[in-house]
């Protein structure tokens, strides 16, 4: 007891309890345990919370996405995908081929792929090419081998078809009259046993594979000259190969992918689908320096002549200064093959539902194409208009680039055209020379937007008026005295032989010998002199320097023009008033230039070349240039041959419709 002395200064009790507590804790580790417990619980809690958050987060994200999958953005139109021709996995095709006097048909797996029973049409050998892997029709042709030269076209075509393709042949009416041995041998090499003995009015069907294998052949001989062989119906089976085998193994590039797509669908384009050494489909011609037409849209007006379109686009894309992005191909009708060609070259194509018939259909197609072009390129002041049966000169865009400012600045101009109606091999000479003419040649030309939008489009002939768009454009109500600029040597070449107003004879007579510029980068001469007033000065200068030819000679004779080079000559013909083209037509006829209607004139003056001399023809007294005629010279008058009038009238109509 005496040890205990309470001392108020210190607080031993407190100290002790703290100490004890510490000691106790230390000894028992209860606090530590508690600490651990709390820690563990906290840890657990955190884990649980994080977990819950994670679950909520992902849930919400998923929910939101589901919710927000944009009802607003749903396409209202239910796109009911129409199943395309079902691609059967069948390995065997049933092929039926029928040949008779008045009807042919081909059915593949029950689907008719060819049927022709039209009267007086489709005579000759019908050929169908099928893809050996899919059975799809890749090409359909008819060669009227009753007529001359058609067998050559057939041989050409058959040679272009790739090995392994399935070929189906059938004759309608008559197919042997002009089927020469070469063609027969080609057919024989395809496996036909009958072909070498095909004769007058025989019926014949044949299915084979290019490069061998005969699937079936039937033949009915004509018993007599006046009768046909009995109709034959061939039913056979064709074994399909794998897709792999049917395709070439080109390196996998963007271009080759396009090529592959093309080549698996169509046939008859030769080396573009060649496995070993395919012809390029991208050309990369040199760009033009200071190209003023780089941003000018190019409208290619096309119908269903895919082979023409192919040739045309090749030449167009090879022209220097071409801008593929500005090219749009307008196809009149829902034809697949022209579209395939367009896609092969990576261009854009637009199909147009045909409206009306014949010339009016073409005319409506033109209108739709031009309107669409200016809609698609609202910035454009001009459009280049081309057709599918034209070759385009290598300097086509260079020619336009050098002259387009005239169309912009000179109100008296109607168009710039790449075509000189009178520019034949023997009448055109100077690639750098331009003319002004009162006619509208078309065949590759430039249209001013304001002309189209303000004048032409609103009153374009309606479908029920069966008019030609170009004839309509040439009418004085539309042309209003304005002129077109054309080159001496054409920058386009009209190669089409098949067409609405075109046939082989006509083409041979008026288009085949047309001169076509092949020289690149031609520097045009004196472009400024093509302006309205400057051109008059230029003509007066030319006439002033021109030597007057001997008017006592016959202008049709070669000797009419002296054997010189590079001189300027002038002759005067009789032309009573502005529309009197009697003498001119006769002169054009004997010069073998365009004589079906009047083309290429400028105020009663025609400019062309003869024997490499510039040759001017002035109509007196209608032409304002008549004053240049020396008083001693009597204008030449040539009378139209009276007899031929009827004969002339027929091609004149055809000609009027053409181009």
């Amino acid at each position, binding site marked *: 007891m005496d040890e205990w002395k309470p001392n108020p200064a210190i607080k031993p009790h407190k100290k002790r309890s703290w100490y004890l507590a510490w000691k106790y804790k230390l000894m028992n580790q209860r606090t530590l345990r508690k600490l651990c417990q709390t820690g563990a619980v906290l840890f657990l809690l955190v*884990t649980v919370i994080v977990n819950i958050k994670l679950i909520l987060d992902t849930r919400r994200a998923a929910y939101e*996405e589901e919710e*927000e999958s944009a009802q607003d953005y749903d396409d209202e139109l239910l796109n009911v995908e129409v199943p395309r021709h079902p691609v059967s996995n069948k390995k065997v095709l049933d092929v039926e081929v029928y040949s008779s006097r008045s009807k042919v048909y081909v059915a593949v797996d029950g689907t008719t792929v060819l049927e022709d029973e039209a009267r007086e049409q489709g005579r000759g050998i019908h050929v169908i090419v099928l893809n050996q892997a899919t059975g799809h029709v890749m090409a359909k042709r008819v060669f009227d081998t009753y007529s001359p030269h058609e067998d050559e076209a057939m041989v050409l075509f058959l040679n272009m078809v790739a090995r392994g393709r399935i070929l189906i042949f059938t004759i309608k009416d008559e197919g042997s009259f002009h089927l020469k041995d070469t063609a027969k041998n080609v057919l024989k090499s395809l496996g036909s046993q009958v072909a070498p003995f095909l004769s007058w009015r025989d019926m014949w069907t044949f299915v084979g594979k290019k490069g061998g294998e005969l699937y079936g052949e039937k033949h009915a001989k004509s018993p007599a000259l006046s009768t046909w062989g009995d109709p034959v119906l061939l039913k056979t089976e064709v074994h399909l190969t794998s897709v792999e085998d049917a395709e070439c193994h080109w390196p996998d590039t963007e271009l080759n992918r396009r090529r592959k797509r093309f080549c698996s669908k169509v046939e008859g384009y030769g080396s573009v689908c060649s496995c070993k050494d395919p012809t390029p489909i991208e050309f990369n011609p040199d760009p033009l320096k200071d190209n003023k037409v780089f941003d000018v849209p190019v409208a290619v007006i096309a119908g269903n002549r895919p082979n023409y379109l192919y040739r045309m686009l090749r030449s167009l894309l090879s022209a220097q200064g071409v801008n593929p992005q500005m090219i749009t191909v307008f196809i009149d009708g829902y034809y697949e093959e022209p579209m395939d060609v367009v896609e092969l070259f990576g261009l854009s194509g637009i199909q147009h539902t045909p409206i009306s018939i014949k010339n009016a259909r073409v005319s409506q197609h033109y209108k739709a194409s031009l309107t*669409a072009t200016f*809609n698609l390129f609202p910035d454009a002041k001009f459009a280049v208009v081309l057709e599918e049966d034209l070759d385009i000169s290598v300097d086509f865009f260079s020619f336009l680039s050098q002259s387009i400012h005239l169309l912009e600045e000179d109100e008296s101009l109607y168009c710039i055209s790449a075509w000189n109606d009178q520019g034949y091999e023997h009448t055109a000479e100077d690639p750098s020379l331009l003319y002004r003419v009162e006619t509208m040649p078309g065949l590759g030309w430039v249209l001013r937007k304001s002309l189209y939008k303000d004048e032409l489009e*609103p009153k374009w002939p309606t479908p029920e008026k069966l008019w030609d768009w170009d004839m309509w454009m040439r009418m004085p109500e539309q042309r209003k005295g304005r002129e077109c600029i054309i080159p001496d040597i054409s920058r386009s070449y009209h190669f089409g032989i098949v067409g609405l107003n075109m046939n082989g004879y006509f083409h041979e007579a008026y288009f085949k010998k047309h001169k076509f510029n092949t020289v690149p980068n031609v520097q045009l001469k004196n472009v400024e002199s093509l302006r309205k007033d400057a051109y008059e000065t230029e003509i007066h200068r030319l006439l002033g320097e021109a030597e007057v030819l001997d008017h006592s000679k016959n202008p049709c004779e070669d000797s009419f023009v002296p054997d010189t080079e590079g001189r300027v000559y002038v002759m005067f013909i009789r032309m009573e008033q502005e529309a009197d083209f009697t003498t001119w037509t006769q002169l054009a006829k004997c010069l073998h230039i365009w004589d079906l209607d009047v083309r290429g004139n400028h105020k009663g003056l025609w400019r062309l070349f003869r024997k490499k001399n510039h040759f001017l023809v002035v109509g007196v007294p209608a032409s304002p240039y008549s004053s240049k005629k020396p008083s001693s010279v009597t204008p030449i008058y040539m009378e139209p041959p009276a007899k031929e009038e009827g004969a002339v009238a027929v091609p004149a109509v055809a000609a009027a419709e053409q181009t």
Partner: protein
Amino acid sequence: MQKINKNVVLALLSLTSLVFLLFQLYYYKFYLSQKNGAVFSKVRGSQSGQDSTRWHVVRKFLGLIASHNIPVYLIDPLILGLVDKDIEQIRSSPGGPTPECKYFCAPRDFTTFALLDKTWKHEVGLFRTAEKMGFQWLKFINKDPRLDGMDDLSGVEIPLHYIFKLASHAIHLVVFYERSGNYLWHGPLRLKQHMDRKFVPFRKLHFGRYPGAYEKPELLLVSIDDLKVQIPKNPSNFLEEMSHSRFLECRYREARAFFQLYPDDASLDAVEFRKKAKSLLHLAALTLNNLGVKFWLSSGTCLGWYRQCNVIPYSKDVDLGVFIRDYKADIIPAFQKAGLPLKHKFGKVEDSLELSFQGEGDIKLDIFFFYEEDDHIWNGGTQAKSGKKFKYLFPKFTLCWTEFVELKVHVPCETLQYVEANYGPDWKVPVKTWDWKSSPSNVQYNGVWPVDEWDDVIQIY
């Protein structure tokens, strides 16, 4: 005993939580690989990681675009809004390194860019490169509206939108097309049936709910957040424009059906009238736009647009509507300067104002001023000889852009209500004899002008 129990429970709990943790990790990994990290940063809650993801995706996208020489420009309203605040500074600074990521790291789901269609070549290579860089992409195509107005052209669908997605961020690329009328157009974004609805939260897109029409913007190359990017030169103007850019396409199909029923007048007179009306409208649009006065197609001109996508050839005048709040005293002198003398002026600014200008030939340009009330909008008419007032009532409407005779103009978005109010339910039937005082179905007699005001409210020249 209790202690042991507690310990066991604790140990068990810890084990469970450990398992939980492991499971979590596994789940993260699983989710990551599937969603390209979409949720990763969200859950981690680390804002900076998410921010830099956005910046990285934008940078990658710009790199992709640059490697294919495709000129895009930024039209993202969020970023442009931020940029606009600092526009002076951004314009003046040549683009040295910036301390913080201020714009491209801002929280958002998309970054929106615009692409002018004519400036690129639709190379497929772009998408292959994009895929190699890890982008997933979607393309939205639809019919080309530039060819829609034409009879039976087909074959072309054009790309309207692209979405490139990488990690948790997506780039929305809006394709703009130039159209007749010198403006830019972008299409609506519509999902086709087979499309992945969850690709991105489509609802949050700033462009694509409706088609839109814009002026061609002047662009400015700037460097923001160390990225070089083109932006509209005046972002605030662009944002303003964006807020009312909705575009209505003319109803070409219905117009064709209309012309099937009532063949178009192709006479020379009709052609002439349309030509004159078109040039008068162009002139009026130019004049009013220069003044900054917003206007829309009204009455017969609006009906012509809505019903037949063309000028009604027998309508004899061009009608425009203007809100009275947009009235400017300069309007009359401006038109006179443009060669359109004032023909008459009815009413006054406070009530029933109407201006008529004499166009070339016999065509009149009528400008009706519209007064807004709580539940309707109206404009007034005045009969010159009697001083009678008329009132034409319309339901409330907003303005949309459209294209008419190669011009970008406003029309009421709620066109049908507008036309029906004016022409009644039979607006589809052409009526050639029209009396403005009695024919409209929304006309109301509105009293007579006091005679002493006549000199002011009835001015005829």
